[in-house]
């Protein structure tokens, strides 16, 4: 959507509903510096230095919600680019106290997991992206039913669009079921689409004592990922399992393993991954962390360290990521060897 149109639309709606609406705005500046791997066999066609500047507006009035971003993207050797993004634009309506409906473009995330969420069959999100911008929702129409411990959502995503060139552009019918049973979160998903045909999955999260949570999820896909020749791989199963410990001191340790059959064809990386993450919350707004992702099959590894600090209205984030590992592994041959990033975000109102 053109930038002026996005903001004109949000501004108009803001003006119409000024009395009762909640309006929030924020500015984000996110520079990034990449050191390229000159030994990589892959082509490198991305600038070394770039920066994303966002002006973000959020509006909520009753069931109406809108989130839009006016973005300036600057990159070494390129002219600045300007984009208007309507991240979300939807209405949550009510048919009865337990029955609701949604129409519009909305972020709808159903997954279980930290680094990988196989049950996210609607909101497909790259959980390993460096300093990602706010998510953009998916056009959909949905009906949701809630009771004390149960919830059902039936959604039609990208209605009328037909077959898309990728999973996140493929029209689909999807269902999410949630139940709270004896303290366990249980999830089930079902999705029918042109590309993947039938997808069905289940997941669960359990809290053990005061400090541990364990979780797992698996998704069956009637068709695997698309090959280079346009054909589809056979049926596949995506799976994740993990555990997290958080102590009184604010220290937390997370260990997660997953199997992603899409990874070799989509990203050129092995399907099996193990993630170890250490994090600390100083209870004063400072949150440093470090995580190590390894691919046992080829000995690749990715080390990420970062920290964020949150003030009254501002948040600073700094981070760095280094890819490497055994010679010949996918991450050792990745085109980006090192990425450094920062982000400053100011909540204006």
């Amino acid at each position, binding site marked *: 959507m053109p930038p002026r149109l996005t903001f004109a639309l949000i501004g108009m709606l803001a003006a119409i509903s000024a009395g009762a609406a909640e309006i929030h705005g924020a500015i984000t500046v996110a520079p990034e510096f990449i050191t390229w791997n000159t030994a990589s066999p892959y082509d490198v066609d991305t600038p070394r230095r770039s920066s994303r500047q966002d002006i973000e507006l959020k509006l909520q009035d009753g069931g109406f919600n809108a989130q839009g971003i006016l973005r300036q993207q600057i990159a070494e050797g390129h002219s600045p680019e300007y984009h208007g993004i309507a991240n979300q634009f939807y209405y949550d309506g009510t048919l009865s106290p337990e029955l609701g409906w949604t129409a519009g473009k909305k972020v709808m995330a159903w997954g279980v997991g930290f680094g990988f969420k196989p049950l996210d069959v609607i909101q497909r999100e790259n959980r390993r992206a460096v300093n990602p911008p706010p998510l953009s929702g998916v056009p959909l129409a949905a009906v949701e039913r809630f009771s004390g411990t149960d919830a059902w959502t039936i959604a039609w995503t990208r209605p009328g669009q037909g077959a898309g060139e990728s999973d996140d552009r493929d029209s689909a019918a999807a269902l999410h079921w949630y139940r709270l049973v004896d303290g366990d979160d249980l999830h089930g998903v079902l999705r029918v689409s042109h590309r993947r045909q039938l997808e069905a999955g289940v997941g669960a999260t359990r809290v053990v004592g005061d400090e541990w949570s364990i979780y797992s999820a698996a998704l069956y896909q009637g068709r695997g990922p698309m090959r280079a020749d346009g054909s589809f791989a056979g049926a596949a199963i995506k799976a994740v399992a993990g555990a997290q410990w958080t102590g009184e001191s604010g220290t937390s340790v997370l260990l997660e393993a997953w199997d992603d059959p899409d990874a070799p064809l989509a990203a050129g990386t092995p399907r099996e991954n193990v993630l170890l993450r250490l994090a600390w919350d100083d209870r*004063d707004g400072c949150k440093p962390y470090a995580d190590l992702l390894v691919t046992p099959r080829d000995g690749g590894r990715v080390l990420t360290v970062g920290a964020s600090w949150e003030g009254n209205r501002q948040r600073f984030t700094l981070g760095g990521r280094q890819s490497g590992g055994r010679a010949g592994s996918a991450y050792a041959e990745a085109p980006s060897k090192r990425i450094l990033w920062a982000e400053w975000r100011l909540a204006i109102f």
Partner: protein
Amino acid sequence: MSERLLLALLFIAPAALAADSVTALLKAADAFRLPAESVRVETHVELYKNGTLDKERLYTVYVRPGRRSLVLMKSPSEIGQKVLLLADQFWLLMPESQRPLRITPSQKLLGEASTGDIATMTWSDDYDGSVTDEVDCPQPPSGVSEAPAKAHRCLHLDLAQARNGVTYARVELYLDKASKMPVKSDLYVGSGKRAKEAWYFGTPVDGQLRIMTMVLLDDIQPNRRTVIRYRSIVPKAAPDEFFNPAALVRNPLTDW
């Protein structure tokens, strides 16, 4: 009646009476913070560092019977975040992901202002214990009190968690002997370490004394002081379906 039964009654009956008495004391103390079973609370939190105001946060808290609370973060930097507490189970919704995350009791303690301190406003459902002694009421340290405290006698209660998932495993509570209004509490985490001390200050509201200010002194970060001001506490019963974890993604609660 056998002699054994008589002896057993002699020992058990006073203990049961003491427990009833502590429960009654805690219910009386709770009434100073929570005037009804279902309420909406507008909370303003000031975070001081070395005596200087560092951050301010706004929360709307919906409390329902059955140890159910829903916390909506309202500050510009936190807008859209929600925390749901259902007895000893907790969920966090971050607006970036729109995904309710199950969190552990220890994660509930994290953050600048602990969600447990904001959302939990009663002791009687969560703690058992005994009155250990009667003492002169403790006096708040300088800089904490908004007015000099009068000399009173206090009941000193030693409370242990009666359920899983409470924010603090043990609480030493001082209640004004005459009114049963909370004066001070020492809050201990599971390891036995004291994490915070809390001071309670009453204000007359509609002719009744209510606790409208709570000051928390952090033992782990002694340069920090948190002032929690209850701007309004209104009887209000948010619908049951708002307390479903999956519903966190859709209910703005703007009309509630």
